[in-house]
Every structure is written in C-alpha cells, then in structure tokens.
C-alpha cells in the first residue's frame, strides 16, 4: 500500500538528514520529511492534522530555519570521534520503547480501548449539541476549549519571547549588544 512506501521514504530521508554536513541541505531534507509526514497523515484519514502539518511543518518551520541559517552560517563541523555512546544510548531507548509498544493493539482494530470509551460519544453527540459537522473543530473549540486557550497563549508567548530576544535598539550592530 502507499502508506508503506511513504513510511520507508521518510525513514530513508531522516537517515540521510543525520549524516549530512551541509546545513542548507539538511533544512531542505527536513522540509521534504515534513511534507511526506503530511501525506502519511492524510493517508491515515487525519485531514485537519495533515493540513496543519503541511502548512506549519513544511511551510513556516522551513522559512524560520532558513532565516536562522542565513544569520548563523552554513556548515557543520566534522564530528571528532565515532559517536559510539550516543548510538548505544539511542538504540537502548529504542529497545525500551519497542518493549512498551508490544502492548499496543493491532493496526485498525475497532475493539481497541481508544475507540470504545469517549470517542463514540463525541461522534454521535457533536453534530446535535453544537451544530458543527466537523467533529475535530467541535471538540477543539467547544468540548476542549480550555486546551485551545492555553495553546493560543503559548503561541502568543513564543511571539513575545522572540520579540524580546531579537529586538534591535537604535544603534548599529556590534556596539556592545550584550543584553
């Protein structure tokens, strides 16, 4: 199926991303990876999430990374020794996660616990109670609107933080900019 091809391509892209030293190529590969992730999410029927990941991951993240890359300059230094310890640590963490994932239900099982608890109630009641056919929007904006308020505040705080970090005083660059 198409999902298997896309997932394999994503894994290959990330391995190439880890090995590249040219940071511009790494940013472009990250954009490719985000776009493949959006396609996989669409194939998994998550249309809202796919649209957001395509717009935010392949769009805004890439623009911000390119902007920062222009300001800091382009090549990564060669790693000094073979990074054996990080490889062992990562694979060990992966082993622990694989052990934990044994308990997950099989792919697409309608009797899995996540499909029998709260989700059927939302799917049945949301159009009647809110008048909105898109259940994701209804849950996001009505049933769980406190979470969305917190998220809007997080976005606002990120904007305020970047303004505080990157704001320019009215003097030329290099005149003691150590605030």
């Amino acid at each position, binding site marked *: 199926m198409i999902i*298997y091809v896309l997932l394999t391509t994503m*894994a290959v892209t*990330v391995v190439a*991303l*880890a090995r590249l030293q040219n*940071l511009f190529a790494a940013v472009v590969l*990250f954009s490719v990876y*985000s776009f493949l*992730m959006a396609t*996989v999410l669409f194939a*998994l*029927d*998550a*249309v*809202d*999430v796919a649209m*957001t*990941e395509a717009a*935010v*991951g392949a769009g*805004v*993240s890439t623009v911000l*990374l390119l902007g*920062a890359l222009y300001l*800091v*300059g382009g090549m*990564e*230094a060669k790693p000094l020794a073979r990074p054996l310890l*990080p*490889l062992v*640590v*990562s694979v060990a*963490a992966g082993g622990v996660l694989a052990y934990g*994932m044994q308990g997950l*239900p099989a*792919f697409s099982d*309608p009797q899995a616990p*996540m*499909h029998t608890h709260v*989700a059927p109630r*939302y*799917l049945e009641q949301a*159009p009647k109670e809110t008048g909105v*056919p*898109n*259940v*994701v929007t209804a*849950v*996001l904006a009505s049933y769980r609107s406190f*979470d*969305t308020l917190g*998220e809007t505040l*997080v*976005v606002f*705080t*990120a904007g305020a*933080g*970047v303004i505080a*970090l*990157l704001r320019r005083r009215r003097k030329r660059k290099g005149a003691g900019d150590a605030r």
Partner: protein
Amino acid sequence: MSVIAAHYAYWITLALMVAGIYIVIARGNLLKKLIGLAVLQSSVYLLYIAPGKLIGGTAPIIAQGHSVYSNPLPHVLILTAIVVGVATLALGLALVVRIREAYGTIEEDEILAQDRAEE
C-alpha cells in the same frame, strides 16, 4: 512476517524516534540539534494518529453515507502539539541567533571551550 506488516507503522515511528534522539545527542551543531528535535516531535505525532485509523473508515467529518469514522480525539491533541512545536522551534532559533552573535560560533564544544577559557 505478519507481526511486522500489521505493526509496520509503529516500527517506522520507533525508527524515526531513535533517529531524532540520536541527532539531538550525537551532533554538536546547535542548528542540527534543533532539526533533530523537530524530527523527534514529528514521530510522536505519527505515534498518536496511527492507532486511531480504522480501515474502511473516513475522516471524522459527519457526512451522509458514512458510518465508520476515525477517532477524532488524537487529531485534536496533535493539532495543539504541532503548533506548540513550531512555537518552541522559533524560540530555540532566536536563542541560537543570539548565541552566534555572542560567541561567534554555534558548535557546542567551541562554545564550552570559550566558557572554560573565561573562567
């Protein structure tokens, strides 16, 4: 073999997570670390959404002619997670820009060497 086929999405999620962790730990360039962090966050989105899919179902938008829908709850959580992820990426990039202006480099070992030389 059927164990791998039924769980292929989970195995790839695991591989992406391990790759993301490796990039964050093993690379010394700050920008590469941030990209690895973004890869790690993306793999978590896949981990949440893959179990919610029902084969033969459709997107959770109530319409005529469909009775099986994918689970809408992970979609809501991951929408929030994506936007929070880009917010943290933006703040991290602003910090990298300031570090570059203060130290002249974004390689982690050179920054630590400069700090140690100052002490």
